[in-house]
């Protein structure tokens, strides 16, 4: 692993860009998967790509990793252009691909040793496995590992060349809550060691906990980029009131407009978002808004169900910006 001195060095380097993506475009036939993505990742930060499936997160990562050729734009990693100096880029990055399967018949230590041999310089195998909590599994075949263990092995393989930047593509998808927690601890430990981490996810809680900055993506574009706190603050409200107004979609146009107007007039409500028949009212004063909402809804004979209140989250930021939920297909 990176020595303490290096970690300090890296920490003092933070604030310097290590990845620069400028206008990345990728087309598959008529479909544009990534459409002019542009961002800078700073050394030592955990940078999250958050968005629903099909937002272009994986394609964006793979263009920066040099696995896919961009149809437009440039990606630089640690000062190397991925088109001109791909081999150099590969030396300084470590990659965990979404749902990669490995050689099932090989043992854990054999597969790590093999990946280590692909690089000009690499870390010793046993301490690495120990750090990934796989030491007691090192003589087991890959096919006998649990989902969480396989994912930790994938991360061990991504670290085997002691990279400056680690790409983790949906590392916790499909894991049970316990295994997710373990993986989060590992990711935070890597950050402490000074690694720059680019992480894609469609779990907003994960992005909130792990990431220094989040790049919110939708339909191949960056729709927002900031720290999780500031993204939520951009809603200008810290709470949300959510409910389902069944039958709303079949109402006549005039009645629908009237209903939205009514909701906007609720005390202290800053914003009203809706998707299908679910409404979300954002407010800074939950108590005042809730009392006023119940009163007004009763007076207007508005029928509602599944009423809940909660703290505003990144999910709300996404809904506010796109009118769709992160979890929709």
């Amino acid at each position: 692993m990176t020595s303490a001195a290096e970690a300090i060095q890296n920490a003092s380097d933070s604030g310097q860009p290590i990845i620069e993506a400028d206008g990345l475009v990728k087309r598959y036939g008529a479909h544009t998967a990534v459409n002019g993505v542009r961002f800078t990742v700073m050394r030592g930060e955990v940078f999250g790509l958050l968005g629903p499936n099909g937002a272009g997160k994986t394609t964006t990562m793979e263009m920066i990793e040099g696995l896919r050729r961009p149809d437009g734009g440039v990606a630089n990693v640690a000062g190397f252009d991925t088109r001109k100096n791909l081999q150099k880029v590969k030396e300084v990055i470590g990659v965990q691909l979404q749902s990669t399967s490995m050689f099932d018949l090989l043992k854990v230590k054999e597969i790590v040793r093999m990946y280590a041999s692909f690089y000009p310089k690499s870390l010793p195998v046993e301490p690495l496995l120990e750090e990934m909590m796989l030491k007691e599994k090192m003589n087991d075949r890959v096919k006998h590992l649990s989902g969480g263990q396989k994912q930790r092995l994938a991360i061990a393989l991504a670290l085997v060349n002691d990279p400056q930047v680690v790409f983790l593509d949906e590392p916790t998808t499909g894991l049970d809550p316990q295994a997710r927690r373990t993986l989060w601890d590992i990711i935070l430990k890597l950050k402490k060691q000074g690694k720059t981490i680019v992480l894609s996810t469609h779990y907003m809680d994960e992005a909130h906990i792990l990431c220094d900055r989040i790049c919110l993506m939708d339909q191949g574009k960056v729709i927002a980029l900031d720290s999780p706190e500031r993204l939520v603050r951009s809603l200008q409200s810290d709470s949300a009131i959510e409910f389902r107004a069944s039958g709303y979609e079949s109402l006549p146009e005039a009645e629908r407009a009237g209903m939205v107007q009514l909701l906007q007039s609720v005390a202290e409500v800053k914003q009203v978002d809706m998707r299908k028949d679910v409404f979300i009212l954002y407010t800074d004063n939950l108590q005042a808004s809730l009392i006023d909402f119940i009163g007004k809804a009763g007076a207007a004979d508005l029928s509602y169900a599944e009423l809940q209140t909660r703290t505003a989250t990144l999910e709300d930021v996404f809904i506010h910006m796109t009118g769709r939920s992160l979890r929709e297909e």
Partner: protein
Amino acid sequence: MNFAYVQLTLAQLRIFARNRQMLFFTLLFPLLLMIMLGSFVGQGGGVSLDTVIVDHDGTPQSQSLIASLEFQSVSPLKAIAGSNETQALDALKKGDKQFVIVIPKGYGEQIAAVSAPSASSSASAGKLAVYFDETDATRANLGLAVIGQLVDGVSKKITQYKPAVTIEGKGVRSLNLKYIDFLVPGIVAMMIMSNNLNGVAGQISSWRERGVLRRMQSTTLRAPTFIAAQITARLLLNGVQALVLLLIGSLIFHTQVNGSWWLLILFVVLGTLAFMAIGFIIAGLAKTPDSAGPIAGVISFPLMFLGGVFFPINSMPAAFQGVVKLLPISHLSTALRQVMNVGAGMSELWPQAALLGGWTIVAFIVASFTFRWD
């Protein structure tokens, strides 16, 4: 980078060694073929020719004919005397018997007339009716030839005919070659073909589908190192498998290896390279591992029958031969056969070596264009 080559080769060998089922079945199939074809066809006398002789004559002459037909225990002809012609013909139609020979009434008198010292040349020969099932052409031809020969012998004895000219069969190679000697090199060639076509195409396309290749592509590993390791591991596997087949052939069926083992190994290597390269092309063309198998099958199955694995190429229709002679499998089976059966050397086999080498080079060039990491 040499280190990566060693590690990848080791990894592939470990995967082979731990995939017991694959190892077992890739060896079992050629072994079964060898044992089945080798013991049923190779060891001679498998065809039975059950024959009923119906004697309507009942004279000493007819008895003597029956005796001489029955006596031929060395021939595949097994004759039993029977008297009921209808019953015998029914058995023939059912397939219980293959031939019915009917000795007509008056046969004895005719023979007596022909064999009498005073017999005129105009005396007509005795006629036997031979019934057979014409739908079973192979046995019919074989049986008619055997019966014809036997009757001819009887006839010559009766007329005290002394042959003026005879033949003696002598193979020019003065080698005692059996069908199994023809078969074993063909089966080794077939195994090399199917293991590499199916093995490479199946494995590479499945690794691609599962993202294993992409993951390696994201490291500093270079494609030639990966392919070189694949080749090395498969050469070792094929070498060992070919050796096992050859040893079993030689220990159980006493197949001969008259030529140099080194030359044999050289052709095993050349064959492996050529078919691996074709396997890489298929892996590149197949969109999914599910389609790789059928594509490899479509290519390897006709090759198995056209390539001189089971039948000599010369016995095929002339129209086919031109095409067949360009196929790599024909040259591999020919070369292996020539080395093992005849002890041919490189001076005679260079066309085969050149053609296999040519296939390897062309196929690898094509494969380098069709190869995809993802």
